């Protein structure tokens, strides 16, 4: 038995007030496992304060090119009598610039179908041209615990591991690598002499 676990798209928020951004995906057996794996894969460095995961199959995605070529998108399907709209999270990519993140969370819409949600999003979030749009049913999204205790235990250790930052080695030069206090404390060089 070695079947592939479901794939989960991962969103990371760098700081309060900033949007959650798609950073990649992980494979996991359940939502909790997905969040833990997402944290290990995508938050080994600062900054992060919150993560969301959603099963990849729950993500409805359109590129600008696909929207231009899919007339079905424009046809309104009438909702069944008595049905209620669903809340969808909307994500959008607006730039071709070099980036390590994909689509950004821009807001929510109410709709009867993913196609309806996209139409609503195109109308509502028209401040910039969308190159890629994602709509995701809000109820399918699992979020990391927002309590201060969890945020600290999940995301603060990365801040303290300064040796993972390239600035830590900023003084390196071929002629004279500078010795830091920590080198002395850790006894660098002594192991071999």
């Amino acid at each position: 038995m070695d079947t592939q676990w479901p794939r989960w798209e991962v969103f990371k928020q760098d700081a309060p007030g900033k949007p959650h951004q798609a950073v990649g995906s992980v494979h996991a057996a359940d939502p909790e496992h997905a969040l833990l794996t997402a944290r290990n894969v995508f938050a080994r460095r600062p900054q992060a304060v919150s993560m969301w995961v959603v099963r990849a199959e729950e993500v409805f995605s359109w590129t600008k090119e696909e929207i231009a070529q899919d007339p079905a998108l424009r046809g309104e399907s009438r909702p069944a009598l008595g049905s209620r709209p669903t809340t969808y999270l909307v994500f959008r990519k607006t730039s071709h610039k070099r980036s390590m993140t994909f689509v950004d969370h821009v807001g929510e819409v109410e709709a009867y179908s993913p196609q309806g949600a996209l139409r609503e999003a195109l109308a509502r979030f028209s401040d910039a041209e969308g190159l890629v749009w994602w709509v995701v049913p809000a109820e399918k999204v699992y979020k990391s615990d927002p309590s201060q205790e969890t945020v600290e235990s999940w995301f603060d250790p990365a801040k303290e591991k300064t040796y993972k930052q390239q600035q830590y080695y900023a003084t390196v030069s071929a002629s004279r690598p500078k010795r830091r206090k920590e080198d002395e404390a850790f006894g660098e060089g002594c192991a071999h002499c």
Partner: protein
Amino acid sequence: MPGRYGVPTDPDYQERLAEFEARIRRGEKIEPGDWMPEEYRRQLIRMISQHAHSEVVGMLPEGAWITRAPTLKRKMILVAKVQDEAGHGQYLYHAAETLGISREAMLEALLSGKAKYSSIFNYPTLTWADIGTIGWLVDGAAIKNQTMLAQCSYGPYSRAMVRICAEETFHHKQGKEMVLLYAQGTPKQRAMAQDAINRWWWPALMMLGPHDKDSPNTEVLVRWGIKTKTNDQVRQEFINEHAPEILAAGLSIPDPELRYDEKSGNWLHGPINWDEFWQVVSGNGPMNKERLEARRRAHAEGAWVREALEAYAAKQKKAAVAV
């Protein structure tokens, strides 16, 4: 939808191809869902999956030294670096999956020995100085390649590369710092650093791939913006940065023909032993067999963890249904 699969027999292939190439010339990123030639998809799957496998196998030569790191600081740095390599493998498998290949198929290709990964990881790490040298030279060469690939026309690959480059710079700097310290250390430390440079210099040059004239894929890769530089260009950048730094540190480079060319501003190298490269690529390197065995063993020994996680997920699901 005709043309959807991007093969030359589609009636509108030429028209779609022209639009696609125009998008790349405008500097647009191609995203999952966009039209692309089947050959673009094939080349990307080949490159990205090999790249992912290299990150995963790359953990082995370094991981072997975690328990033998000379100080706590160096141990923490090495643990973090090996964790990063695992993460980089994950970013890249994700990028390949957006092209329609499954994670399972890629892992299967790696474990069965069908898939290729970087030739460099089939060399042994004989002393602690190899860890510093891998950071400085091997990661140094990898960063030159990855910085170029961060400009790639395919969005998911480009994003993975931007994230990797940001993290990889730490790998390069910690290695450089370590080797430079040993170069100024005791005679024994200096000798150890020199021995490591002697063994890793040529494999580092080779890992950037065959000369342009022997690299049949380069032309189409450059035209479609998958690569923005050729193997020889990237190799030259690597040598121009690292050769003067190694020499300035009082270490030597095992290439008697290496010289600085005033006219071009380049450091020119002597002939590369491509027979050795092809031997290693085709599975006859010093460590090919061991690396694959270690990977298979790790996969087999992790089976109970995967089974436990699946059983737990099934139990949770059942409990949720019962409520």
